[in-house]
């Protein structure tokens, strides 16, 4: 994809020093973002109940609990400590691990320590590490399919604007973005799993039985890819149409570059810019946002875990998943920004 002009040369006329400054600035922004996300989650579960006159401790043990139980919970959660102390302890836990003192015993929780679940009293990190692969498999598999379908459909539609193919694909794409994923999911389960018995409706770990794993993942992949493929096809078509009208495309044609090369080397580059932006956001958000797909197909991923945690007000688990999601989003955005310079020669780090 790289032409000789851009590959190897340091991005931007200002040289590597500017890149370093840029990177440091971006990393700083990443840290700020994560702190804000954490403050927001803390605020939602500790401050809002306070304002609306609900004791946070009662949310965890129920309204009928006696005073002693409430006091115990308050001590366990450190609700008596100032909020800054709680925040500091939480950060320390993630970076270097922390010690919990409870009824005279000291329990060490090694880094990365997200604390212990309020409900099951299990350590959070192993739960996250257990569920993250399922979400990753779901997102990665679906992304491959939706990029293939979406980009192809969008490019062909743009190049044959107004043709039968264009109209049919775009109608399908419009339907795709108008269908809720849990409806297409249930429909496909009813038809392909229950009706025709072609695929499994259960999740099996990949290491246990590969064919069963594949059979259980294919419907979630396709359902998710149908929604995102439709979005990407619409975006690709619109961007491609805009790009094909640009002056530099006319110039390339005028100097005698053959049409396939114009499309592949000149048009595709700028078409990719908004698509990569969207891909970064989408993949990051899917790390915690595949809630609907995971619920529909009963996949034991992060989304399912966080949904349950929210209904149980299990703060440490919610914090863990939200932080993973937020990190995924900001890291994906950072990678995307760095990719711009490689893909589109007009964009330089500024």
């Amino acid at each position: 994809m790289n032409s000789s002009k851009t590959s190897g040369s340091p991005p931007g006329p200002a040289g590597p020093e500017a890149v370093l400054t840029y990177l440091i600035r971006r990393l700083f922004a990443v840290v700020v973002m994560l702190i804000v996300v954490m403050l927001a989650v803390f605020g939602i579960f500790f401050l809002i109940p306070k304002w609306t006159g609900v004791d946070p401790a009662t949310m965890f043990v129920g309204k009928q609990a006696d005073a002693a139980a409430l006091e115990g919970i308050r001590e366990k959660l450190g609700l008596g400590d100032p909020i800054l102390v709680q925040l500091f302890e939480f950060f320390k836990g993630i970076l270097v691990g922390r010690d919990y003192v409870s009824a005279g015993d000291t329990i060490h929780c090694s880094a990365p320590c997200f604390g212990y679940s309020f409900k099951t009293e299990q350590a959070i990190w192993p739960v996250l590490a257990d569920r993250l692969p399922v979400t990753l498999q779901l997102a990665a598999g679906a992304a491959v399919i939706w990029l293939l379908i979406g980009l192809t459909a969008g490019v062909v539609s743009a190049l044959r604007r107004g043709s039968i193919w264009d109209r049919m694909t775009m109608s399908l794409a419009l339907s795709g973005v108008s269908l809720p994923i849990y409806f297409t999911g249930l429909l496909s389960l009813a038809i392909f799993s229950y009706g025709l018995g072609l695929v499994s409706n259960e999740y099996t770990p990949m290491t246990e039985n590969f064919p069963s794993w594949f059979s259980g993942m294919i419907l979630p992949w396709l359902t998710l890819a149908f929604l995102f493929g439709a979005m990407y096809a619409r975006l690709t078509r619109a961007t491609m149409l805009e790009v094909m009208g640009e002056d530099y495309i006319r110039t390339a044609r005028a100097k005698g570059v053959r049409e396939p090369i114009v499309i592949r080397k000149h048009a595709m580059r700028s078409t990719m810019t908004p698509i990569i932006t969207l891909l970064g956001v989408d993949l990051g958000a899917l790390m915690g946002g595949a809630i609907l797909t995971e619920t529909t197909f009963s996949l034991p991923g992060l989304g399912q875990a966080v949904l349950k945690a929210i209904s149980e007000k299990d703060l440490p688990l919610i914090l863990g998943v939200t932080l993973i999601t937020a990190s995924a989003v900001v890291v994906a955005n950072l990678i995307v920004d760095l990719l711009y310079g490689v893909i589109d020669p007009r964009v330089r780090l500024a």
Partner: protein
Amino acid sequence: MTAPLHDTSAETAPVDPALGVSADKAIEGRSLGRIAWTRLKRDKLALTGGIIVLLLIAVAVFAPLIVGLLGHPPDQHHEDKIDPLFQTPIGTLGGISGDHLLGVEPGNGRDIFSRIVYGARVSLLVGFLSAMVAVVVGTVLGALAGYFGGWLDAAISRVMDMLLAFPQLLFIISLISVVPSQMFGLTGTGVRLTVMILVIGFFGWPYIGRIVRGQTLSLREREYVEAARSLGAGRRYILFKELLPNLIAPITVYTTLMIPTNILTEAALSFLGVGVKPPTASWGQMLSQAVRYYEADPMFMVVPGVAIFITVLSFNLFGDGVRDAFDPKGTR
């Protein structure tokens, strides 16, 4: 399509001069709104979408009347229509009959038609009002950021970037789940609806805000704004009388495209069990109940799913049409 001529009248100039004007007419000043309306009238798909949207609004407004004529009270159980052994409706296709136009719910036998009609109220109410919240907040903050610049712009832009990078669905679910069941003098469904509208709107405003900010930024440097300023116009006058009218087109486009997204979010929240609670009917909540019955009674899943699909599709068709009609480049 007629060949686009250049309309350089004073009113339309700030947006883009390359607006289509039919060739047989003399070049005269036409407002952007009128040009867009002429174009929209020719777009059959968009019109169809718009008509279905109007019908849906009528259904939502006159829900009690419609249900009184064609259905049953939405909370009324009809256990006699349910197979006592399998809990599924008696009869074909989920119990569809002249009495129950779309069948009955498995388990308790509530009339699906009536619940769909009442569900339209929740969907449209949340869809429209949350878009309104987003538009008001987004326009005000976006215009302030774009017009005044400086630290105000920096602060508002940071907040917008931050909100756009937030794991939104996660936060919406968390926020709604901690809200108590009584607030602002409202109870139950009222609280749920208010909170959903505010929260969905809150996460939607940066999309509008970014566009308004960008437009304001470029508009405030135009000559006509400078002319107004040199004639002694105050900030308020420039913002409301000179800039805002030119922001109406992009705001309209993004609002119409935001409503279907919000409707999908409401349905998703109800599907996940954090939206409106039974007995209040909502399409997403019906689908979540249908999960248990999709093998035995697929109609119960298909009806609310199709209702969501038709609603969102109509809004999208109409929204796409509005966008194309306002597009200064003019061709689809």
